[in-house]
């Protein structure tokens, strides 16, 4: 589903290289965990995958279902099924959450040549998904993410993901700032989306989330490269021993 080959990317503004020859393959149906110390380039990778223009790809390829997505803008990538749950969800005062959800869902449908949702059908879907994620109706009446607590913002991201039904879900530190109950709700939301035609990339630097969303593969990112890949036991090793040994071995 996702193939990243020898990816190099830098910050467009000042030319600093952040991703330095990264290789990663994620298959349909797979849950891949990306771990790594702070500052290793995990968020940057997630932004590049979703098409943020602050970064420039200088070398390498990103193939999604076999096709390069480098020429597509962020909204086209989203409509093709790539979803990023932001590490820091963005507040948008003046834009109502319901309007935002409806426009996003219908614009994606339009792009794919599908009919727009009727208002009752839209309402039904939102109500159902919100209830699953224990999101109070009052939250949906506020502007996008405005006045949400940290945990509410993360749950709202998962709500958007559930409604948009993406094919490639990238979760950037969705566990940070969540207490254990909220973490379970979020993990249930993600697990509910697991399916043979969908891949999930879970970025985290704690092993904790991986107790609830069991990964098929684990990749360690350091200084813009994947320095080690393995199965879920790699996450336990990291939890027990930290990154130091791995980093030394890679150096």
């Amino acid at each position, binding site marked *: 589903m996702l193939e990243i080959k020898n990816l190099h990317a830098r910050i467009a503004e000042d030319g600093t290289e952040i991703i330095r020859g990264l290789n990663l393959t994620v298959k349909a149906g797979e849950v891949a965990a990306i771990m790594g110390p702070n500052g290793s380039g995990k968020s940057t990778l997630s932004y590049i995958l*979703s*098409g*943020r*223009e*602050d970064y420039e790809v200088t070398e390498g390829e990103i193939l999604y279902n076999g096709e390069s997505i480098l020429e597509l*803008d*962020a*909204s086209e990538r*989203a*409509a093709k099924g790539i*979803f*990023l749950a*932001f590490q820091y*969800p*963005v507040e*948008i*005062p*003046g*834009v109502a959450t319901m*309007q*935002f959800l409806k*426009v*996003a*869902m219908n*614009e*994606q449908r339009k*792009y794919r040549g599908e009919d727009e949702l009727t208002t009752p059908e839209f309402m039904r879907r939102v109500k159902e998904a919100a209830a699953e994620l224990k999101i109070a109706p009052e939250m949906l009446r506020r*502007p996008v993410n405005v006045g949400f607590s940290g945990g509410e913002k993360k749950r709202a991201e998962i709500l*958007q993901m559930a409604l*948009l039904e993406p094919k490639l879900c990238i979760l950037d530190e969705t566990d940070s700032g969540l207490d254990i109950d909220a973490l379970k709700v979020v993990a249930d939301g993600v697990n509910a989306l697991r399916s043979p035609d969908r891949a999930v990339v879970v970025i985290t630097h704690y092993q904790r989330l991986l107790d609830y969303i069991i990964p098929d593969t684990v990749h360690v990112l350091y200084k813009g490269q994947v320095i080690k890949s393995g199965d879920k036991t790699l996450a336990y090793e990291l939890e027990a021993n930290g990154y130091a040994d791995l980093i030394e071995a890679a150096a």
Partner: protein
Amino acid sequence: MNMQQAIKMTAAETALVDAYTAQIGDLPGDGAVLSLRDTLVHELKTAGLPTRRVESWHYTDLRTLLRAVPSADPSAFADRVEPIVAGSTVLSVRNGEADLKSLPEGITARSYTESLLDGSAVAGLAVLGSDDAIGRINVGLVRGGLEIAVAEGAELEAPLEIQIVQSHGQAHTRFPVSFGAGSKATVIERHLSTNAEASFVSSVTDLTLGEGADVIWIILQQQGPADTHLGQIRFDLGKNAKLHLFVINAGGKLVRQELHGRASGEGADLTLRGINLLGGESHTDVTFTLSHDVPHTTSTEIIRNVVFDRAKGVFQGKILVEKDAQKTDAKMSCNTLLLSDEGDFSAKPELEIFADDVQCGHGATVIDIDHTQLFYMLARGIPENKARAMLVNAFVAEIVEELEDDETLVEALEGVISAWLAKHA
């Protein structure tokens, strides 16, 4: 030729004076009104239109900007349009002619032409000062309008829409409106044009709010892309009167909307909100003065501007706090979303405070679309154009939503804004 004439008149000045000369004998008024018209047109002829050297016109050099004035066409005919809020009571003034109809209980209205003819209008025709070019032009050429009274204690259920529709030519209207003590009303003063042909409009509204009156007054300016709109609203707020004055500029080529008021009764409160949607080659000026005359009066002013293309905008806001007006609370802000390098917005907020125990402040900012917000919307599959339009809309919609007590009104105004943005963004 008049020997006092020091400067050569511009084409526009000549056209205005000619419009007056051509209509002498036909313009309504008793002796006093006619003689006042004559004096003011004579002043216009000798002083000319204001230039940037006149302080209050510094950012809007009317003499230079007003290139031409279409000639008056008494046969012009404009169709009435649907009110912006369904179910409103509509009073229309088409090409200057008032169209009266039966009104709900609590409002009375008569044609302003009659007030000119019987001379009762004369006291209200005084200009505000030597720089009151709008007042001068309007008194010189005004043909009609409406004189409206809302009875004491009357609470109007539906909004009243005063519809000033113009197809082409000139229209000069006047609207003295009084709100009796304890009355409550929402009024939409809506200026629009039915086509793209140039028209020249001057309109003066004069509001008097009695004790405890609670009024929402919306000026919705949707003139055509070649139109000149010179508007002025004067207001006087009595004891505990509340006025929510909302100006939306969404049209016109050369626009000046003046707002001049005083809080003359204790407990009076003004909420001024302005939205300027500016595009093309237009020039739009909102000039506001408020005098807090007595203690314990409050006002807040928020102006939001969106600038596209080569549009230019101006906001001048001056709050005067008189010596006796202790405990005045006034806050003014002007925020501009500048979406084009060739666009421009000048903001000049001023406070003149003679009392010592007051809380007053002002601020002006210029911003661009927030890129993080934009990316977030794109990442959800919203195409860039649409995402930008939504963010621009959000910037101004915030202050429309303050009218949340009337949902249909909010929806109607949001509709005007999104329609404008869909055309310009």
